[in-house]
């Protein structure tokens, strides 16, 4: 215990508080006994403590308070509801009730979220289409921006994504804008983007068909408020073409 620490310890010391079970206090008192300045400071502090005790204990209650207290409790029926419930107790109960309610809500939300995530994470074609379409709508970004289809394929091949996919004759006629490598269910997905005549972009996603466990027997056209998509299977790969375009126009680009 240093001198500064001793000062702090002694600040909380009362004359009658035992030091036997408090080694730090015992050490601080020993230091105070050996250090005249610290000892004098301690004496003044203890004098202050004694003065406070004396003055505060000199407060006297009104002479009739005891009688009033006894009169107020003589007719109390413990079984009756308390007219003035203990605020702390009520707050305690209310706080716990709120905590329990919040926990239940949290569990329901977390459970729902978990189920939703599980549903979303299932390797179904619907989820693949949904995730790829969302990517195209929200976070569309090409890794390579080029009109050179071969350069896009080279990039895809070098990044482990399907690169030997076959384009439909209609897609072959469209200018390429670029492409990128995505991932879905830890499976590589190739993206190739095409310029449409109305300044829109068509996104084609290609994934190995083994990546999708639940595939519909027939790939159907799908359309949301902002995007349409068409899908097909060819040579062990699943193709998904999505664009902000009428479904019929998109269907013309599919096989």
């Amino acid at each position, binding site marked *: 215990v240093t001198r500064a620490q001793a000062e702090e310890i002694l600040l909380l010391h009362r004359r009658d508080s035992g030091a036997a079970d408090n080694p730090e206090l015992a050490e601080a008192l020993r230091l105070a006994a050996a250090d005249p300045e610290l000892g004098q400071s301690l004496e003044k502090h203890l004098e202050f403590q004694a003065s406070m005790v004396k003055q505060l204990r000199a407060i006297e209650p009104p002479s009739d308070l005891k009688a009033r207290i*006894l009169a107020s409790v003589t007719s109390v029926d*413990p079984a009756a509801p308390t007219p003035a419930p203990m605020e702390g107790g009520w707050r305690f109960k209310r706080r716990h009730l709120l905590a329990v309610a919040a926990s239940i809500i949290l569990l329901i939300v977390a459970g729902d979220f978990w189920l939703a995530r599980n549903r979303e994470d299932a390797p179904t074609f619907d989820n693949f289409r949904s995730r790829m379409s969302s990517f195209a709508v929200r976070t569309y970004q090409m890794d390579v921006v080029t009109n050179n289809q071969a350069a896009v394929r080279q990039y895809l091949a070098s990044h482990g994504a399907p690169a030997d996919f076959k384009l439909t004759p209609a897609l072959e006629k469209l200018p390429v804008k670029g492409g990128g490598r995505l991932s879905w269910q830890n499976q590589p997905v190739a993206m190739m983007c095409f310029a449409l005549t109305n300044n829109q972009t068509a996104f084609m996603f290609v994934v190995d068909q083994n990546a999708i466990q639940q595939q519909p027997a027939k790939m159907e056209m799908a359309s949301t408020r902002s995007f349409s998509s068409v899908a097909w299977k060819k040579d062990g790969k699943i193709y998904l073409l999505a664009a902000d375009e009428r479904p019929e126009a998109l269907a013309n680009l599919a096989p």
Partner: protein
Amino acid sequence: MAPDVDFEKLVELHYKSLYRFAFSLTRSESEASDLTQQSFYIFAKSGGQLRDKTKVKSWLFTTLHREYLARRRRIVRFPETDFAEAQAELPVVEANFSTADAPAVLNALAKVDASFQAAVSLFYIEDYSYPEIAEILDIPLGTVKSRIARGVEQLKRLLVETPARRPA
């Protein structure tokens, strides 16, 4: 009323110290009387549920303090302070306090931060230990020490600034 309790004896034993505690917090005779009375009333209503009868006194103090906080809560928010954080801020104040009288002490106590008052009052009025004060105020032990240390320092400083009244 709680069974197997001699209520009159209980009141006789504790009402003065409860009143002093209440008065040190409120500095109002009527409020302190009301809080004391209310604490015993609550005990009469629900004190029978108290299993450990040796805890009656601290139960009464806890109840009184909660009642006080409930009344104050609408006005003041009480900040929490960590002991370690408080230590660095403690100034050294030396003075002769033996001449301070009760009104001066209460006036000074009234100016001490509200969050420190209850701990300081219990420290002096009842000689409660720190763990006991922590239990009564339902705060951590470190916070009790922090509040007492800072409250005592504030009290000292205030008593130095406000000379004690001398009898005429």
